[in-house]
């Protein structure tokens, strides 16, 4: 078993009409044993930028803490929040710093940029950015997620429809992956509100 599959994870982000959705599973396992069903993979950087990290749980937590550190200093010095594109570049730089002893996570970043334009991207564990206009996926269930998203996605969905689509894509994909699941955690972000929802799926 690869080290990336040690804890199990599934993360997906999708672009809608002036909004985005980011979702993850909730399982934390140690190989095949489930030890938590409420693991937090998605974190808010500020009201308009979210990051979800898949991969080794300890690196997920530490990398997030380092990003909070850097973002707080940015906010204090620049007196504004970071744009999603800038934040993605920061994450990429931090990951590449550890090129020869990397953080074993794959981030998915989603945010609302200028003019409420949604932004999503993913990167590998050493910071290679992959921008997309529709959806990005990461984690042990990524192959299923690619298939489900490709089939269910359509452009310019409103917040409610986007929520339904991303939830269905997530739940059906984690059902085909024994290392992720135990429910879902979905954030749908529009310029005016952040809606957080917990999904109940197959609890296995």
């Amino acid at each position: 078993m690869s080290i990336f599959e040690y804890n199990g994870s599934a993360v997906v982000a999708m672009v809608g009409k002036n909004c985005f959705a980011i979702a993850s599973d909730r399982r934390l396992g140690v190989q095949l044993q489930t030890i938590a069903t409420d693991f937090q993979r998605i974190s808010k950087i500020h009201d308009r930028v979210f990051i979800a990290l898949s991969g080794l749980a300890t690196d997920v937590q530490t990398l997030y803490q380092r990003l909070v550190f850097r973002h707080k200093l940015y906010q204090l010095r620049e007196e504004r929040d970071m744009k999603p594109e800038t934040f993605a570049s920061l994450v990429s730089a931090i990951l590449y710093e550890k090129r020869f002893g990397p953080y074993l996570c794959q981030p998915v970043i989603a945010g609302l940029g200028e003019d409420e334009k949604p932004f999503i991207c993913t990167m590998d564990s050493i910071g290679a950015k992959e921008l997309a206009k529709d959806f990005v996926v990461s984690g042990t269930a990524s192959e299923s997620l690619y298939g489900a998203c490709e089939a269910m996605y359509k452009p310019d969905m409103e917040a409610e429809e986007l929520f339904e689509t991303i939830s269905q894509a997530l739940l059906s994909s984690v059902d085909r992956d024994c290392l992720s699941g135990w429910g879902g955690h979905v954030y749908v972000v529009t310029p005016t509100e952040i809606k957080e929802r917990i999904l109940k799926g197959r609890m296995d």
Partner: protein
Amino acid sequence: MISLSKVKNMSRRYDSRTTIFSPEGRLYQVEYAMEAIGNAGSAIGILSKDGVVLIGEKKVTSKLLQTSTSSEKMYKIDDHVACAVAGIMSDANILINTARVQAQRYTFMYQEPMPVEQLVQSLCDTKQGYTQFGGLRPFGVSFLFAGWDKNHGFQLYMSDPSGNYGGWKAAAVGANNQAAQSILKQDYKEDATREEAVELALKVLSKTMDSTSLTSEKLELAEVFLTPSGSVKYHVHSPDSLTKLLLKHGVTQPAAESS
């Protein structure tokens, strides 16, 4: 600075290096740094039971100055700590950046906000280093730190170039700080509310400031308090809000000056 050598010519020999004592046991460079601050714009801090008030006198006022959102006297160090500055601005910027990084390092390590006194102590340790080794001059800045933590609630600290610091109920730094401190000693009330502290701060500053009229362009006012939801807020007053407060407390001279 030259006045010291008039009194005792010996002191000239001990001016040049920070890292040595004079025969009387003084560190002249540190004292000279405090002289520099004594000529800078003043700042006053007052502790109240529901918050801390910081007020500063802006020395650089010109129509040509680009008024942006950033301020000259007040700086946020972390979500729960802010400071007012008196002295050399460029020195202050370095120390503020150091303080910000120290606060984030603590949060990264312990996953909770750095206690205010520890932050002040950490910064003062940095300042002290410049009085003992390296052959570099001390920082010409005094700070007033205002913050809140869950151990000790609202706190106000004052620090100077020597690296000494103390916790205060009310303190003043910069020009005319002696006069301000004596007025504060008389008029400070233990159980004042934040509003009363703001009023006291404005009154003290208006009495000790050199300039003839008090307008919102010459001042910066900030408060550190708890919101109803329990989080710490650092709020800098807008010029409009300041003008209203000045009128309300009767400290503004409706200036005959042209603006």
